[in-house]
């Protein structure tokens, strides 16, 4: 079993442990593409907030390939895939009473989305 050594502490505290993956994986989406978030309600761990499920947004930026939390939390492997910064309007998320100026960016994994 690995042991924490004194010289490891500074790096771990400053940078944490990155979940970026080395795997070469093709992106399912490109910047500017319209997406709809899957309406999924898994019993397991997920990083997909409830309020965005079923909502439509626009892929703004491809952040690269990362470990998929939904499988990694359960010993089911990295299932590495692209994560994107996705742009949602306040009105899409919260309805007509939201300000038309409000915009929310969420980092979402490939498996959370479908093309519109």
């Amino acid at each position, binding site marked *: 079993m690995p042991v924490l050594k004194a010289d490891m502490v500074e790096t*771990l505290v400053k940078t944490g442990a990155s979940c970026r993956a080395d795997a070469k994986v093709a992106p399912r989406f490109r910047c500017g593409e319209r997406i709809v978030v899957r309406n999924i309600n898994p019993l397991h761990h997920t990083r997909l907030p*409830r309020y965005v499920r079923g909502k439509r947004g626009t892929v703004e930026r491809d952040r690269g390939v990362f470990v998929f939390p939904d499988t*990694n*939390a359960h010993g089911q492997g990295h299932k590495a895939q692209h994560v994107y910064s996705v742009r949602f309007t306040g009105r899409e998320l919260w309805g007509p009473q939201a300000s038309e100026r409000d915009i929310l960016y969420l980092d979402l994994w490939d498996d959370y989305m479908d093309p519109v």
Partner: protein
Amino acid sequence: MNGAHDLGGMHGLGSIDAEPNEPVFHEEWERRMFGLFIATFAGGHFNVDEFRHAIERMDPAHYLESPYYEHWLHSCETLLVESGAISRKELDARVAKLEKEAK
């Protein structure tokens, strides 16, 4: 998991008050909890997603009423017991001893 941790869009929870000159730790035990996390994480006892999920598995009422680093403590305890690194009996005995000493 649709748990109490997923608070986005919830009403009635009060304002988010930014504390001026907020210290890194408010209590000494929080500093120790941070150290315990780093040691057990580097020790390979769990990955960050397992750690987050163990927080989500807390009793929801307890989750909402407990401070941030108590969530970390709960997760560490849960995962170390589940992996067999410590036993529930050992944990309970240690807590009982600390409670007795604190009286």
